[in-house]
């Protein structure tokens, strides 16, 4: 292997015809080798499929036989499909419900768990973060049992409190609630930790100054913590939104998108189109549309993040 220190090697002298930039590149061949795995893997397993997907989104193909070029028909079919429209609406509802409530709850948890006078702080943090390690699939089994229409423990609890048991998985809005609860149960610990990290990055003298000015806890929270935490909150918003747009496991196990497509998400519809009905062209078109949606939303949020930083 080439020694790093003694780089200008005699082999160079034997290649006088190479322009200097190529000599530079040859001299750093090991560096290129070391960063190459990313580019090779990305090229073969991500970029090539991306180009292939683009091509596929203009074809009609079910995996066998010749492809038929159909122009924009796949996009048209996907745009006008009732399930896709419903899935888009559901996904947006999940985002609009999950992201703000997630910010509110995780910021509250973080502020409380950051208090120095809180006993059992470490234990509580450990418990709050524990759901993060679970598989969404496995937790979905548990939630399916807990919220079961006839035998679920949640309904038993409601009966015990003299309330009406609910048909969780037969009513669209209630099934959405179960998905939201499950997503929060798994995700809140992670966003709480990120918020905690943000809180610990605020210099203590900012609080001291506010306290000297006679601000109470509530005032300090609104006038000091919230403005300083805005970048972290926006970061949580970005990753939370991407998470919702990727949502697949929870509805796949819990509801299969039901009842009546009430919990169908975009990624679940993509899976159904591609791998249950093998409409590869339509699936590729939907994949592209989801991709554009994710990029557009993320870019907008990132731009906001940057403008708030300044």
């Amino acid at each position, binding site marked *: 292997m080439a020694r790093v220190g003694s780089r200008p090697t005699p082999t160079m002298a034997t290649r006088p015809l190479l322009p200097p930039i190529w000599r530079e590149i040859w001299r750093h061949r090991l560096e290129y080798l070391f*960063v190459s795995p990313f580019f090779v893997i990305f090229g073969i397993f991500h970029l090539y499929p991306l180009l292939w997907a683009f091509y596929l989104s203009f074809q009609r193909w079910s995996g066998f036989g010749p492809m038929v070029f159909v122009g924009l028909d796949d996009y048209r079919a996907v745009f006008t499909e009732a399930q896709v429209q419903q899935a888009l609406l559901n996904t947006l509802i999940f985002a609009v419900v999950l992201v703000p409530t997630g910010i509110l709850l995780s910021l509250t948890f973080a502020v409380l768990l950051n208090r120095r006078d809180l006993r059992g702080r470490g234990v509580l943090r450990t418990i709050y973060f524990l759901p993060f390690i679970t598989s969404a699939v496995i937790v979905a089994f548990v939630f399916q049992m807990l919220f079961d229409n006839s035998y679920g423990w949640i309904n038993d609890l409601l009966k015990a409190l003299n309330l009406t048991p609910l048909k969780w998985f037969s009513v669209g809005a209630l099934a959405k609630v179960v998905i939201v609860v499950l997503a929060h149960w798994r995700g809140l610990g992670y966003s709480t*930790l990120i918020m905690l990290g943000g809180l610990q990055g605020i210099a203590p003298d900012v609080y001291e100054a506010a306290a000297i000015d006679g601000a109470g806890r*509530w005032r300090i929270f609104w006038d000091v913590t919230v403005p300083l935490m805005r970048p972290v909150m926006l970061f949580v918003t970005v990753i939370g939104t991407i998470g919702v747009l990727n949502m697949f496991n929870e509805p796949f196990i819990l509801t299969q998108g039901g009842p009546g497509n009430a919990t169908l998400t975009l990624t679940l519809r993509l899976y159904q189109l591609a791998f249950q009905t093998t409409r590869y062209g339509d699936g590729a078109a939907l994949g592209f549309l989801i991709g554009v949606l994710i990029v557009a939303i993320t870019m907008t949020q990132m731009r906001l993040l940057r403008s708030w930083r300044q």
Partner: protein
Amino acid sequence: MIATSRADKAQRLGVGSLSAWRRKTGRAFLYLFLWLFAFIFLFPFYTMLVGAFMPLNELFAFTPNLYPAHPTLDNFVNLFQEFPFWRNILNSLFLAAGQTIGVLFFCSLAGFTFAKRRFPGREGLFVAMLASMMIPQQSTIIPWYLLMARLHWLDTFLPLWIPWWAPAFGIFLMRQFIAASVPDEILEAGIADGCSLFELYWRIVLPVIVPALTVLGILQFIEGWNAFLYPLLVLTSKEMLTAPLALAFLLGSSLMAPQYTWLFAGSALATFPLIVVYFVFQRQLMEGIMSGAIKG
């Protein structure tokens, strides 16, 4: 919180026992609130654990038992008749470990090179790598699957390892950490000793970045262990399924009411190893995520 802030002021003004009482109720509410959520976060784990040792009729009794009245191991026995579940758990381990080792190696190697070496086009390549993170997986998933089929990689672990070995985000994290925590002096000393570039990485950089490797490794391991969508696409035979996948197949194949107690038995077995990992590396994991937030 309003109560406590008023109490603070009241105490400064010298109002005695009333403010003390308010402060106490404020604290009581604080603890009640936090422990209520702690209970909610723990309860599904409890359900899974007791359900694993209950007969189904006990889990679904009219007035449910919150603990097994007649503990049984039947759920485990039945699960193991239905699926080679030890094998499935081992597959999860195999998948997660295979992903993690590759990710740690390729990310730290590229991260070191981007952080500490100068070469033509370094900035351009780094930016190109970051830009690749914008491509959502949904857009590529169908051809990705078709590619795996063409490579004859279906029903093997290769599609779940190799394409995920060099994630841009991991390389970015490693570059940031190495740039901040590996001093140039020790690298120069290594060069003076005649180390090759790989020896610099292997002997000098790696030992310094163990904390960052630990965090990235645990996060990757958890992700690999719990992976679902991509394994669902490529793994099909019972011997190759991962634990979450085997359980999802069990749920999907049940003709009558799902056998939740079997599922819970499997879920408990599949979750237990991660809980152990979590408790061993808790501190590093939490600190890693918290410090990432400050930079992010």
